[in-house]
């Protein structure tokens, strides 16, 4: 039996990462992971930094590193407006490792009260997400 599908669009400022029918999407919001299936009630939440999993109409699941933005569900139309959204195949692992090392170094050098602490921490989180998704 095939599952009900919904129209999913995933956009970032510089491109459309996905536009088509999907069975399921899991994304990390600021309050934790949510899973959206077809006929979800109208919903919106800001996105955090984490892995996103999209199951398309053929039942194939793909992972991506997703960072920031908003997910919105309106009348069975699901839209993910992310700051960055990279499918696992597109992730540059070497770059992620470099970013991780850089962020670690920075974090060690600064105190928690530093106003740039949160920025460096977010950078580390993004790098770790990319490494996790790719690995």
């Amino acid at each position, binding site marked *: 039996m095939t599952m009900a599908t919904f129209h999913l*669009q995933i*956009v*970032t*400022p*510089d*491109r*459309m990462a996905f*536009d088509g029918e999907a069975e399921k999407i899991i994304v990390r*919001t*600021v*309050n934790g992971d949510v899973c959206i299936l077809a006929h979800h*009630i*109208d*919903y*919106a*939440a*800001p996105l955090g930094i984490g892995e996103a999993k999209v199951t398309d109409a053929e039942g194939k699941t793909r992972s991506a590193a997703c960072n*920031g*933005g*908003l997910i*919105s569900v*309106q009348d069975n139309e699901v*839209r993910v*407006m992310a*700051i*960055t959204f990279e499918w696992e195949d597109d992730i540059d692992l070497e770059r992620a490792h470099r970013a991780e090392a850089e962020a670690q170094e920075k974090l060690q050098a600064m105190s928690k009260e530093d106003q740039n602490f949160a920025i460096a921490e977010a950078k580390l989180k993004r790098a770790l997400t990319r490494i996790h998704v790719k690995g």
Partner: protein
Amino acid sequence: MAGASMKGIKLRIKSVESTMQITKAMQLVATSKLRRAKERMELSKPYAAISREAMMAAVGNCDDQNVPFAAQRDVKSRCYVVIAGERGLAGGYNANIFKAVAAHAQDTPYCVLPLGRKAIDKFSHLGVRLLRDDFPRVEGLAVGTCYRLARDLIDGYLKEEFDELYLVYTSFQSMMSQEVQLEKLLPIEKPAGEPHRAVTTVYEPEAAETLEKVVPDFLAGRLYSAACDSFVSEVSARRNAMDSATKNAGEMISDLRLKYNRARQGAITQEITEIVAGAEN
């Protein structure tokens, strides 16, 4: 007499020809840049449209009192994000943008976040305070850069460095027409005339808090798409300007050639007349 004017015309033809070579080269460069710029613009459109819709929906779902970034303050000063070109020779492209800013600003003090060398030069020349001046190139402006700019702008707004934020850019309508747009970014205004939607959407956290989190992101997206749009406009304006310059140069050259040939013919006729007159005597 004829000899001197012939030499003068010849020199002018040469100089117009070399100008034409330059305008033609610039036209070709603009044409080749246009395709990529257009692609980038097309790719930036879905996000701009979708995020705008989502933001308006969220604003509609907020209680009137607590929409973030919507507090109307007395306007003591404004901030303009002005997107202009890196270079001139693009017809009225840069001048139109500056005219729009001047017409809107009137006497209210303002500061500017200039993108593009021409905007930086213009406003520093006018003595306007620049938020920063390190973005001379609009071409290939990175998304990440737009996020940093958006964060700074939101900060400035919250610290009451300015009370309103505007975006001034050029929107590409067609190869022949590009229009300057002036858009209010902050404070956020409820769309007028739109009926209040039934509040059925579940926001997690509440709509107001959600908005507060995503408005900086959407602002960044807006800056990015406006920059893409502006760059296409700039390149097509330059292409048009250089196209007509090249055509004008061509016309001038054929005009001058005609004059040159007339002068040459005149000189020959005179010589013959002189020889014939000499033989008859």
